[in-house]
């Protein structure tokens, strides 16, 4: 996608969100009309509790976007720290053990393990963000480790080591700037994955708790009303699809760096 198209899409999405935000503030979000069909007062009807579906979806989408952003930043930082330590470790046995653990973690049904832990810890979006960050950090660390190990073999890094610079000095002054753009790009490529994991937890009712709405809960609640009150699930589904597509279309500048 070219730069102008990406900018236009970004503007269109922002304008749309702003418009729906204005609607969500202006609309009478709590009514006595349960499962009311779309009308001029409630553009996409009301849910089981008589709340405006579009306003609920808007608030749920904001929570989802904030969670995705927060988890992505946490995973980026933690992955950098763990991957950096892994790459800098001199002890070969320790490094092999850590690398084996990280590799193994990728073959564990992380989502199920995280759900198990979440059930025991109790529901809540903040707890969910923490559990997601912990669950996703090992794969991020593995990527960081691979990139730094590759960078360590570059001539500039070897020359600096030969000149007597310490490993830490070379790491901070040369390796970090060298690998940072690709790691940042990798983090951005994981945004849809984080969104889906957040959705998976909320679908099970382990994330956002009522009266706050979440896309997952809205979808689950809409399932018994697939035909009789289709608006309950269609609107969150459309928002979910749109957010996923927007997260997939990463900014032009990052794509250019990847190339």
């Amino acid at each position, binding site marked *: 996608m070219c730069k102008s198209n990406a900018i236009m899409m970004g503007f269109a999405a922002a304008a749309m969100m702003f418009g729906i935000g204005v609607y969500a503030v202006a609309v009478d979000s709590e009514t006595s009309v349960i499962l009311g069909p779309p009308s001029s007062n409630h553009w996409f009807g009301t849910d089981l509790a008589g709340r405006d579906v579009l306003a609920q979806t808007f608030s749920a989408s904001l929570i989802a976007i904030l969670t995705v952003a927060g988890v992505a930043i946490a995973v980026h930082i933690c992955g950098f720290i763990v991957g950096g330590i892994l790459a800098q470790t001199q002890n070969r046995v320790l490094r*092999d*053990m850590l690398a*084996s*653990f990280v*590799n*193994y973690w*990728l*073959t*564990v*049904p*992380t*989502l*199920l*393990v995280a*759900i*198990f*832990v979440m*059930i*025991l*810890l*109790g529901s809540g979006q903040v707890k969910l963000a923490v559990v997601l960050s912990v669950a996703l950090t090992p794969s991020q660390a593995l990527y960081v480790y691979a990139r730094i190990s590759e960078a360590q073999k570059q001539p500039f890094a070897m020359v600096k080591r030969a000149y007597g610079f310490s490993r830490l000095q070379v790491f901070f002054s040369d390796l970090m700037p060298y690998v940072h753009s690709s790691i940042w790009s990798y983090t951005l490529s994981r945004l*849809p994955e984080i*969104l*889906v994991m957040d*959705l*998976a937890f909320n*679908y*099970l*009712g*382990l994330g956002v708790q009522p009266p706050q709405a979440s896309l997952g809960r809205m*979808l*689950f609640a809409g*399932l018994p009303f*697939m*035909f009789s009150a*289709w608006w309950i*699930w269609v609107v969150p*589904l459309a928002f*979910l*699809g749109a957010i*996923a*597509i927007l*997260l*997939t*279309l990463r900014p032009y500048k990052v794509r250019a760096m990847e190339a």
Partner: protein
Amino acid sequence: MKQRITYRLLLLLLTLAMIPAVPLFIILSGVNSAEYVMRGTLNLSEASSKQNLQFGEVYIDLLGRMAVLDFGQSTATGQPARTIVASSLAESAKVILPAMLIAYVIGTLVGVGIQMSSLIGQLMRWLRFTFFIPIIVFAYLLAYLLSYAGVSSISPLRYLVAGAVLAIFPTYLVIQSVNRTIVDISSSKFFQYHLAMGFSTPDAWARFCWRLLAIDYLSFAVHMLVFMFGFLYFVEVPLGIEGMGPRFVSSIYRYDYPVIVGFCSIAVLLIGVIGFLVDMARSWLDPRKVYV
């Protein structure tokens, strides 16, 4: 390689050993739902009188029961959790196996097609975003269409559709992997050497390079299973298939801890064992005997 397999085995055992330890730690730290955990996960009939039990004693008891796959009885239905997990696993296999087949076949065909036709490559670039749309979106839309068309909930078509939806993202992974492997191998010195020695391209692939592609395929089997076990309920719940997904969801909503522990343990064990076997197969197939 031996070291890698040993570590994998140790870590698998460690993970299984951690499963009963997590609720115990949570009870001891008093985080949440301790009563449910005691009555459910630990399946202690007289929870109040056993609260003074030592950590080690309870843990060994739990571990012993887990070793024989005894996860206790469902707090919701009274059935043994093991029976519930086994029956729903058999039902889910009807979705997972076709999904894996679809992902491998379609992924390979498209991956090879990209190499042969620039049009397919262009099409893939345009359609790339569809692979990142959460599968639940497709599952809901197709569930609506199937119900609208009057397809029964036990129809094989539902299983096929569920498999196809579950295969969407794994197909993308296979396409990317096949494509990259073909490019890497075709431009490698190893391949060029065989061409220079007089082998034709198909001959070089059939005699030497298939192993490298097979290693890639094997690696993906584990990652696919991880993905499919994790997101199974995204397709099974909307499409009305009584597999692991809906049972897992209902056990979570009912706080049915024995069933939850059963599902998690069986999934970890199954995927761990398959991963272990895959590692063994890779070590046998890989001519280089070294992994990066």
